[in-house]
């Protein structure tokens, strides 16, 4: 009974956040633009691709292109989610909704929770619809049905939760645009580091590392710790996209990136609630 009493205002604030975001003209323009861009990918599926003089079969083309599109959409929506989140508190304050909500018997944590959920749901829907367009293109035009594509999209939404919480927290501590750029920076550094890590596992890189004796092993240890602890946004995307591979692929793969990002969500979430509890609102 007590739980449902606590959940009711959260549900309402989530609903209002969702409605308010969807009604924004900038949101609609952004969504239509992204949907058109994804729709244009349709042409890529109709090309003839040759590797080592051999034409690729439709299944391989579809899966490879779909995976690439999956990553582009996943990354793009993370940027959009940060844009949506960065000014949510300020807008609520300027438009009087914060004082309207907090002057009611609604606790601050319920307000913040409602905002997080609203932004998470709206950005997840945004990404899911874009991924669904790819799913429909491959299903209708190419007769390749990949339900795992949609499951992967939902799994990837964990990244959006991280982005929403991180931007909301930082927007309380610094100007909105700096909060947006900071989270973008965390994402870019993570993506680059993962790229370098992937490249370093190649045979050429391994050979080069073995030959090089200039840097002792202990020097790189702290880099490894930082790399290990850095938010694994690309890792989650790769984990999700591994679902799109054929059944013979490595399935879910290592779950560490998922645990890493969920742990960040938890830690940043606690920090956000604590910060907002002591914040001078309105």
């Amino acid at each position, binding site marked *: 009974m007590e739980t449902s009493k606590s959940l009711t205002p959260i549900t309402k604030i989530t609903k209002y956040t969702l409605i308010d975001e969807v009604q924004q003209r900038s949101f609609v323009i952004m969504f239509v633009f992204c949907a058109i861009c994804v729709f244009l990918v349709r042409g890529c599926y109709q090309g003839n691709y040759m590797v080592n003089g051999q034409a690729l079969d439709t299944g391989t083309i579809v899966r490879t292109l779909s995976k690439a599109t999956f990553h582009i959409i996943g990354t793009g929506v993370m940027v959009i989610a940060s844009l949506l989140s960065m000014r949510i508190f300020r807008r609520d304050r300027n*438009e009087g909704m914060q004082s309207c909500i907090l002057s009611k018997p609604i606790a601050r944590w319920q307000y913040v929770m409602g905002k997080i959920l609203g932004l998470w749901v709206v950005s997840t829907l945004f990404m899911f619809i874009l991924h669904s367009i790819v799913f429909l293109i491959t299903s209708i035009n190419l007769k390749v049905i990949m339900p795992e594509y949609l499951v992967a999209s939902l799994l990837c939404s964990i990244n959006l939760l991280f982005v929403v919480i991180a931007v909301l927290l930082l927007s309380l501590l610094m100007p909105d645009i700096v909060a947006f750029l900071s989270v973008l920076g965390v994402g870019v550094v993570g993506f680059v580091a993962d790229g370098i890590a992937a490249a370093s596992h190649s045979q050429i890189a391994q050979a080069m590392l073995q030959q090089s004796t200039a840097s002792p092993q202990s020097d790189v240890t702290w880099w490894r710790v930082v790399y290990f602890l850095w938010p694994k946004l690309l890792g989650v995307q790769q984990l999700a996209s591994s679902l799109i591979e054929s059944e013979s692929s490595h399935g879910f793969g290592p779950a560490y990136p998922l645990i890493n990002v969920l742990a960040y969500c938890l830690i940043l979430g606690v920090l956000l609630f604590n910060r907002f509890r002591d914040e001078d609102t309105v």
Partner: protein
Amino acid sequence: MIELKNVTKRYDPLTAVDNVSFSVKTGECFALLGPNGAGKTTIVKMLLDFTRPSSGSLSINGIPSTDAECRQSIGYLAENHHMPPALSGWQYLLRCAELLGISRSEAADQCRRIVELIGMHGRENTKVGTYSKGMVQRFGLGAALMGDPKLLILDEPTSGLDPIGIREIRQLLESLKDQGMTIFLNSHLLSEVEKICDTAAIINRGKLLVKDTISSIVKDGETLEDLFVRVVKG
């Protein structure tokens, strides 16, 4: 109903509210008066837990102001009230009702009644972006009245209203007072305060200077304005 005990609020290096204590009884119409920057709005914000005191405590009906439960039956109108421009006045009132946990059908009934009460019938379905400041203020007052609150906290309720609007709001507040509602009023319009309120407190630079019934602090042949100037100028 409202109790402030040794409340201090510091925004270093400024002390916005300095060791203020007073109480407001149930059914009382109370005015908090003071020049700009005296600390009136800060007290209101602390009552609603928008900001926390540096020291001291505030309570409503015996419940600490930091507990959301104490806002169960409070209506609040902010100074320079704002509303989301994408909503209509009706949608805004509906949201306020929903946030109070009022059922949809009952909310619609209350909204209809309040729209009539604030004199906004016929304009409730147009977007807030098209409203004048006075109209926004009226809807703000309507939102504060949602759910039949027992305590009404009004920060400059007549801000932006024309003389007719001011008179209508005064008449509305008088009728609410007659119904037994406790009213906490922040206002610069001393003539209006004198007509509506029973008790008043004057603060300046965060310090409480006077708090008593208006009839006892205003001397014969003096107006509340005279008293205000005399007390504030020391």
